[in-house]
């Protein structure tokens, strides 16, 4: 009797550990352990620990908003937003137009957001309408909507009548450059706000606060009536419909939100990075964001703000740490390979999980 109880206890403990691992996901565990290892190894191989930390936090601050953009669509059951480039394009339009209209300094950042917004709403609405037409096949079509819009804009960047000398090719006098420096515009406009510098450690407080604000708004939204309805649509569309929720409207709303956040996300990225990148640059930007949120513990139909924060930190940590640590350790820069395998492997892992509800 006693024995069997102990047996059962044993079993449950082992079971609990197993289920914990299953919940957390083995790949996620490996990635987290790998990052931990990198942090531990960094001082030994001669990389400055605080510089590494600063780099990681910096990159975190650039990318977090774009990862946050994944949340609404996952909640409404539209899956991973591989169509992120569409939002990025709205952001780029906002950025370039704001400069074209002659705004400078912090004002140009505000104006970029304001100008990007209508584009994001419009494109997002169209995109959302399309995704409502093709429920079940969202992810593949989203990918290709992103690709086609990026390649379409490649033509547009050349053809649109931009004139600002800081942006167009000098010799031709028309057609935007592939990279545009933001010096004098909104370079480090958020990062420089309340920046903390202690020795080698620097923290872009402003950017982090900006992200915190957006993340809080997102969290608050998800707890409003509309927000819970959106989650309901994602987790059980039939039930949601029965409860009188307009499924298509919720999905549309989530797509518009995601697109707008992507637009803001790229602007935040640019202010940290210091350059606007046009043409093919937004092409694969969805993939790092997608893998980041998945690494953070999200699945194809479940995501939280915590997932965003953890995921972005882990992903960007690996991106920044591997080159330096690897290079110093074995004199072989395998970071690219590790990054690709880790991030794509994570996406694959998520796609092959059986998920309830939507496909």
């Amino acid at each position, binding site marked *: 009797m006693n024995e069997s109880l102990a047996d059962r206890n044993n079993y449950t403990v082992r079971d609990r550990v197993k289920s914990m691992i299953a919940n957390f996901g083995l790949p996620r565990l490996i990635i987290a352990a790998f990052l931990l290892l990198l942090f531990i190894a960094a001082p030994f191989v001669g990389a400055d620990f605080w510089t590494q930390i600063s780099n990681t936090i910096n990159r975190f601050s650039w990318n977090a908003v774009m990862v946050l953009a994944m949340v609404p669509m996952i909640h409404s059951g539209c899956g991973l937003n*591989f169509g992120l480039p569409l939002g990025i394009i709205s952001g780029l339009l906002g950025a370039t137009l704001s400069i074209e209209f002659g705004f400078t300094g912090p004002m140009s950042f505000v104006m970029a957001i304001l100008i990007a917004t209508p584009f994001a709403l419009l494109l997002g609405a169209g995109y959302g309408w*399309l995704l409502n*037409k*093709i*429920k*079940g*096949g969202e*992810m*593949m*079509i989203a*990918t*290709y*909507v992103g*690709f*086609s819009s990026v*390649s*379409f804009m*490649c*033509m547009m960047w*050349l*053809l649109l009548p931009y004139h600002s000398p800081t942006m167009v090719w000098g010799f031709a006098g028309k*057609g935007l450059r592939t990279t545009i420096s933001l010096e004098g515009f909104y370079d480090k406009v958020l990062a420089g706000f309340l920046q903390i510098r202690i020795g080698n450690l620097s923290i872009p407080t402003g950017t982090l606060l900006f992200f915190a604000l957006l993340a809080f708004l997102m969290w608050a939204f998800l707890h409003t009536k509309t927000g819970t309805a959106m989650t309901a649509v994602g987790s059980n569309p039939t039930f949601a419909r029965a409860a009188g929720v307009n499924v298509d409207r919720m999905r549309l709303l989530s797509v518009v939100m995601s697109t707008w956040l992507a637009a803001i996300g790229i602007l935040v990225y640019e202010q940290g990075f210091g350059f606007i990148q046009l043409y093919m640059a937004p092409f694969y930007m969805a*993939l790092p964001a997608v893998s980041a949120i998945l690494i953070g513990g999200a699945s194809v139909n479940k995501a939280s703000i915590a997932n965003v924060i953890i995921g972005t930190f882990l992903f960007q940590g690996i991106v920044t740490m591997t080159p330096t640590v690897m290079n110093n350790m074995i004199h*072989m820069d*395998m970071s*690219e*390979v590790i*990054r*690709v*395998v880790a991030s*794509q*492997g994570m*996406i*694959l892992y998520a*796609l*092959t999980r059986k998920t309830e509800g939507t*496909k």
Partner: protein
Amino acid sequence: MNNGFGKKIRNFIFDNTVPLMFVLICAVCIPLSGFSFSYLLNEIVTRMGRNIFLILCLLIPIMAGMGLNFGMTLGAMAGEIALILVSDWQIWGIPGVVLAMILSIPISVLLGYFCGKILNMAKGREMITSYIISFFMNGIYQLIVLYMMGPIIPIKHSSIKLPRGYGIRNTVSLLNMRQCLDNLLAVRIGGVKIPVLTFMIIGVLCLFIIWFRKTKLGQDMRAVGQDMNVARDAGIQVERTRIISMIMSTVLAGFGMVIYLQNMGNIATYSSHSQIGMFCIAALLVGGASVDKASIGNVFLGVILFHTMFIVAPKAGAQITGDSMIGEYFRVFVSYGVITVSLIMYETKKRKNKSLVGQQLAQAQKEEAKAHE
């Protein structure tokens, strides 16, 4: 009568939107580009020989209901690895091509098996999964080619190896087997070189596909493609059939890549394979195929239309806008656009059919209820 004819035309246009659009684009761009007819014809024939084999490999997964196989990139990688080895061993000419094809088989089978296994875990979203697999494998490919070739896989020649001692150079020259398939038995008709042997190989593959459709395995695949559950009830091993179709497609893609690269004459080690999937799929769709239905005819028509566009677009773009980059971007945009449109049309059609079936079911139930009364 008239009405029926009009309806027929409308249906024809609706069913062939993409090819007709392309005919239109080509019709506008060809005169603008100013290329001579014989130049165009020569280019198209060359590109047909180069690409058709690769595109044919997409047909088999479509048959098995697994959609467009973005994972054909895996086969392309296998072909490239085989060619790198063969060119390091200095095997030239046709023997080199044959050896590369055979060497690619085990690699392709392994990759295809892996891909099939994973796709079985992601039923219903095969395409996005195979698409991500191709990225994932690209990482592994880099690991092998950039780091393991040299210290682990012996590479002798410094013309292939990077000066640092490991890894393969950006381009590997295949000068010694360049167009050896195309030139053997080649026939020139009025300045147009026809690579007869390559076309014969393609012909054999076409015959194989036609024959394969009629075999037990081919029938099984089509049954699985129609409805997995019904097929399973009928005693077909669904998972196994799907894996086999992936393996076949990957192996054929490996062969196709060898043919493709012997025509090009060099391997761009880190980029040759990355776009190949996209262009092949775009070409197939341009030929009027859809995600769930594709024929050999689609392949041929697609290659001709797509590559005509591909050849003339930059020049035509330059004529219209005065900037040759516009044309380059335009053809990339069109490739992606075609895939997007086809995917959307496929999904909407699927939904329409589903709701139609639902309506019919409801109707039948209603009638049954009526009969009971």
